[in-house]
């Protein structure tokens, strides 16, 4: 705001008067840039620190199915935790070699979800001499352990089943609900040399969920003359955090895995099939990879080239924008929402009457009869019709209002003609 003094006026119009020319050197520019970068850099450092601290403080968790450190519904942390509280030393591993190293006589080796395991790997696991617990065993592992138990031909329903066998663990558990594929005695089970497998939780279809048998693989160091006891459950589902409390799952899980003081919990990594082909990579020329690398570098250089702006943007202080007709529109919406046909019609009638009165020279103070009289004379319409239009009852709906508006327009145009 400028306030011009009462008697002196110095303003001039036109682009002729040069203002005082400011002069600047770049001396302080670096300092100001450092100052302007201070907060973004501090913010980035704080963010980095926060990420580091969080990653250090957060306990390790996995999302692997049935892993003892997985607290999700599909994990096995609940079971592992109770086993540890009961004094069982749980060692979790995903490496077969580590498991073989840790397992031995006096330990329980739990192998879960082992689909795709090679035959020799399965045999070396069974040769450790540890008590074996299989949860959802793959065909290879099961076949390596025994020829007497195989996966069932027909999957049983996921209905609760009762133990119905002599195994004390199963009897203690009582009932079990599993969605597994089921186990059954295979055709070769009539071999009399080994003790017959015990099949528990047999469904109506004849498939069992739980089997206890002796492994046909002897320990590698020949410390025992018979193979270790193998307890096989057809599915990891009942032992997961979500279902461990249903039926006798907790009892079965704790007893099945708690026979020894040490438990090696193995969930093997998916084996990489060596025979798998190179895929798309084989079809490309050898320089494709490095070309891609160079293109990435080129992309970064182009981003740096195009990304640097030639100086900061200059902000514009924008004026307030309120359309002047806003109040009229708002009032129109209020009329509509209130279905105020009467109010709307009154406004239209008053407006039309005012314009016609001005045109016909009817004074503003004149009453309705004078007005009706003047309009009916000017338009040659009967007085009743004019009175109905200008002073009639309020319309009762949208259509009535529209009709009234159009008829008023017609009446007005006739007056204008006259």
């Amino acid at each position, binding site marked *: *705001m*400028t306030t*011009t003094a*009462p*008697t*002196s*006026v110095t*303003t001039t*119009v*036109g*682009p*002729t*008067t*040069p*203002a005082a020319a400011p*002069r*600047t*050197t*770049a*001396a302080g520019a*670096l300092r100001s840039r450092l100052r302007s970068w201070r907060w973004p850099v501090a913010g980035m450092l704080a963010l980095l620190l926060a990420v580091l601290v969080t990653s250090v403080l957060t306990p390790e968790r996995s999302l692997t199915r049935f892993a003892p450190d997985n607290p999700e519904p599909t994990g096995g942390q609940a079971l592992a935790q109770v086993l540890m509280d009961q004094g069982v030393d749980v060692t979790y591993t995903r490496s077969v070699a580590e498991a073989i190293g840790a397992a031995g006589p006096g330990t329980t080796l739990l192998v879960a979800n082992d689909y795709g395991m090679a035959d020799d790997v399965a045999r070396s696991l069974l040769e450790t001499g540890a008590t074996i617990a299989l949860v959802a065993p793959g065909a290879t592992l099961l076949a390596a352990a025994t020829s007497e138990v195989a996966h069932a031909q027909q999957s049983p329903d996921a209905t609760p089943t009762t133990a119905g066998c002599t195994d004390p663990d199963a009897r203690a558990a009582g009932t079990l609900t599993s969605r597994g594929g089921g186990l059954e005695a295979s055709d070769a089970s009539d071999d009399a040399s080994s003790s017959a497998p015990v099949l528990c939780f047999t469904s109506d279809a004849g498939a069992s969920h739980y089997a206890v048998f002796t492994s046909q693989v002897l320990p590698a160091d020949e410390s025992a003359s018979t193979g270790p006891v193998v307890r096989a459950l057809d599915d990891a589902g009942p032992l997961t955090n979500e279902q461990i409390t249903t039926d006798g799952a907790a009892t079965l899980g704790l007893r099945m895995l708690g026979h020894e003081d040490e438990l090696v919990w193995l969930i093997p990594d998916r084996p990489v099939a060596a025979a798998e082909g190179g895929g798309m990579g084989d079809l490309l020329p*050898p*320089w494709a990879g*490095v*070309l891609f*690398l*160079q293109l990435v*570098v*080129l992309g970064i*250089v*182009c981003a740096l080239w195009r990304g*640097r702006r*030639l*100086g*900061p943007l*200059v902000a*514009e202080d924008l*004026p*307030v924008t*309120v359309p*002047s*007709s*806003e109040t*009229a*529109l708002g009032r*129109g*919406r*209020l*009329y509509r929402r209130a279905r105020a046909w009467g*109010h*709307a*019609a009154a*406004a*239209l009638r*008053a*407006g039309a009457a*005012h314009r016609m009165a001005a045109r016909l020279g009817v004074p503003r103070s004149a009453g309705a009869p004078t007005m009706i009289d003047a309009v009916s004379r000017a338009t040659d319409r009967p007085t009743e019709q004019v009175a109905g239009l200008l002073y009639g009852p309020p319309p009762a709906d949208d259509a009535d*209002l*529209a009709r009234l*508006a159009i008829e008023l327009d017609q009446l007005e145009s006739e007056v204008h003609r006259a």
Partner: protein
Amino acid sequence: MVITWRAAALTALGIVPVVLTASAGAVLLWSVAVLVVCVVDALLAASPRAVSLERTVARAVRLTEATTSVVVVTNGSSRALRGIARDAWPPSAGAEDNRHALSVPPGESVRLTTRLVPSRRGDRQAGSVTLRTVGPLGVAGRQLSIPLPGRLRVLPEFASRKHLPSRLARLREMDGRAAVQVRGEGTEFDSLREYVLGDDVRSIDWRASARSTDLVVRTWRPERDRRVILVLDTARTSAARVGDQPRLDASIEAALLLGALASKAGDRVELLAFDRTVRSRVVGAAGPRLLPALADATAILQPVLVETDWPGLVGAIRERVSQRSLVVLLSTLDPSAVANGLLPVVDQLASLHTVVLASVSDPEVAALRAGRGSAAEIFDAAAAERGELERLAATMVLNRHGVDVVSALPDDLAPRLADTYLALKAAGRL
């Protein structure tokens, strides 16, 4: 540091050795080589820190007219300065082609001229000047933005000046006419002259005719040296958009035309921009200095979102003038604003002065009134009609209090107000 397209091209050239050797080492080696070339080139570029700048910009320019901003770049370094300079202005300053190629030998200067065509009234502050210097290879360089203050005042367009000649002609007509139709107290006796056909017979001076051989008529001239106070209301109602500009801008146009006309008619013009306090004021300017002063004072006005302090405004007017004046209120005819603001104080003004209220009406409301397309449009039309009736009622109330009301569309307000002024002058009501 900043890199150019040549750095990207150099990197792209690296595809050849990389493909030929097919080794990742080549990628690394080439990238390092490009980096070294860029760093060396940037180091060899003239430092923008050694440059000194000087800006010259016009003090003021009328809206829609072009002006220039001149920046003198002096190369204070010992190397030749090559690169680009950008003279940054806000968008509404209309700085087109504000990027200039630079090539300045050591110790020499160059003038960079940026054309400015402003698109909005008000003060425009210049941004910084950005210098980007490149090295001898043109691969990389250095960049620096240096704040270089500069202010350009964009004056109102005064598009309504096209109406000035016709109004001045009518003023001259009034001036030399034998007799003004109404011979009130406000007209002053000027001289006697011979009767010509068409003169009002009532203005024949019989006494003078008796002394002469011809019929002699008295001539009158409109009174001069009256005071005209233009009051611009810059409060919230002036912020509303009418057409594509705020109501205030149309008011300023009307004030400028009336100011120019009244000044030519020999009246003394003052301007007061007011909402809750005096925002701008022009006092004591006359003749050729008046219009520039008015333009300068109104250039920086912006609507303020507060309610007008009418009693304060009356006080400010009373402070300035004690004799009878023409007070032109460039405000709005908004019924609620009139009822709560102007009406309680209007008698204090109208008893002393001739008061005219000039208000910009909205063409969109007129369009709304004609809407018959759907039920919603008819409701809007009814609302617009009701608004018009209320404005009419407010006009009548103001008329009863002795205030003349001029309400017109944005483009018509200035000429209509000028006509009202001429009519008042002709009627001797000033």
